[in-house]
């Protein structure tokens, strides 16, 4: 009998490298974290599965005509997926607390400190300018912005940057409190701020997304697609006349895009590309960016605390990042730990909504600054 045909059955296992095996294990860990620890399961689960798929040899699934290859070309190279996600986020975000308290916008800007500091550190570590900018953008703590920017500037780092951004997003409750504890005094943490009721008219709510889109597009044209998608979603929400579109943006569009986005990002986690010292640097720099963002927001909060004659709770600054509304909730929980009668949630929501906006603008600014080199 001729057994040579059986070799066909062994061809795939023989192609398997140790890197593939390690990456499949990492994919398994991501799935484990999603299921057991509830770490951003909406993304880490599909990413984990995508990572396993892409490391199975000879499947052709990530090839030009493979499912994941086609999805990558259609949704990531074109940046459509992150923009679709932003339409959904815009529809989900209530900018009311920010409109009630426009000075919170300052905190949303301060919360982007990490992006720029990390960019500089990454350059010093030997990354190219484009790579450094993509790594810095992890500091936006904003998955879609990170995907959007790095797919333009450094597509070869997309896998580690995305995994890093989403992992840290899920770690907001673990990473922020120690930073807040280290940088604030007991007196600062327990500043009480009564809820200030300033009703925002429907006209303002409707005009806000339109005006922001025009202003940001004129200042930073490269940020226009990001901000326009976010604001389009928000306009659908605030118009109050297109309930079906609002529902679709918040649910069907977001869910479907997230599903494809996750598995496609996972498919970039090829062992040969992923298992490099670079990935470890990115993980470390991303964490640094996140901590610096929180610190930047807190420092600005402290300045406002001093300027307001100790009436402004500096913790609110820490929510000037984009993890909306998670960060605001964490700040409320943290403040209540020290004084259960202190409710700064609505103020923190304002700063958090500003952070959502700030990270998108920061992503656009980074793209604009580097546009000459693209």
């Amino acid at each position, binding site marked *: 009998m001729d057994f040579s045909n059986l070799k066909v059955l062994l061809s795939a296992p023989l192609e398997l490298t140790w890197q593939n095996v390690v990456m499949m294990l990492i994919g398994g860990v991501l799935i484990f974290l999603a299921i057991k620890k509830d770490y951003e399961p909406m993304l880490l689960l599909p990413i984990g599965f995508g990572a396993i798929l892409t490391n199975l040899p000879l499947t052709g699934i990530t090839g030009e005509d493979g499912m994941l290859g086609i999805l990558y070309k259609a949704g990531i190279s074109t940046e459509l997926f992150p923009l679709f996600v932003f339409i959904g986020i815009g529809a989900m975000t209530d900018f009311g607390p920010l409109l009630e308290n426009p000075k919170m916008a300052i905190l949303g800007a301060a919360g982007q400190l990490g992006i720029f500091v990390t960019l500089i550190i990454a350059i010093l570590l030997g990354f190219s300018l484009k790579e450094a900018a993509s790594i810095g953008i992890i500091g936006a703590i904003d998955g879609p912005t990170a995907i959007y920017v790095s797919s333009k500037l450094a597509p070869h780092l997309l896998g580690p940057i995305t995994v890093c951004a989403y992992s840290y997003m899920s770690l907001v409750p673990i990473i922020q409190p120690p930073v807040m504890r280290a940088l604030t005094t007991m007196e600062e943490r327990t500043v009480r701020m009564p809820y200030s009721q300033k009703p925002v008219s429907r006209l303002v709510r409707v005009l806000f997304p339109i005006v922001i889109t025009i202003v940001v597009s004129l200042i930073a044209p490269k940020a226009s697609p990001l901000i326009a998608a976010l604001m389009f979603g928000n306009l659908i929400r605030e118009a109050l006349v297109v309930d079906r579109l609002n529902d679709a943006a918040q649910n069907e569009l977001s869910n479907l895009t997230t599903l494809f986005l996750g598995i496609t990002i996972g498919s970039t986690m090829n062992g040969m590309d992923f298992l490099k010292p670079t990935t470890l640097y990115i993980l470390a720099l991303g964490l640094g960016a996140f901590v610096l963002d929180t610190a930047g927001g807190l420092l600005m909060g402290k300045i406002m605390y001093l300027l307001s*004659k100790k009436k402004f709770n500096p913790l609110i600054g820490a929510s000037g990042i984009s993890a909306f509304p998670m960060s605001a909730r964490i700040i409320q929980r943290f403040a209540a730990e020290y004084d259960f009668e202190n409710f700064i949630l*609505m103020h923190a929501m304002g700063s958090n909504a500003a952070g959502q906006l700030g990270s998108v603008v920061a992503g656009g600014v980074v793209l604009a600054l580097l546009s000459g080199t693209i």
Partner: protein
Amino acid sequence: MKEIKISFNGKKYDVKVGDATTSPVEVVVNGKSYQVEFEAESSGPVAPAKTASPVAPVVVTTPVVSTPAPVTAAGNGSGVRAPMPGTIVAVDVKAGDKVTRGQQLVSLEAMKMKNAIRAPMDATIKEVYVTEGAKVQYNDLLVSFE
């Protein structure tokens, strides 16, 4: 701002009084800010606040429209108000219950976050004004104490 430390019925209060020559005067009790207006019978706006300590908490309890519930200078006739708008998702006490400081009275969901509204002091519940599912506005009375 003038800082005064007082104790009233065995409870300590940090009181800061703003410019007492104006009305309303800003008075901060334990970090909460109140706008206090003087009644006509008081001899001009200057006198009461300037005499400092014992007067301050009494001044605070004279209610002025739309200020938050005073942090209850005395336990009597006080209550707990909604610190922000939201929906009541749980009511953990009923009239007649004795509660201790820090005990959860109701749970208020705002911006999809559940917030425990706790008793600011040891007290007996006189009346509960909200039920599960009730929507409340800022400063609505939730629970009153005897």
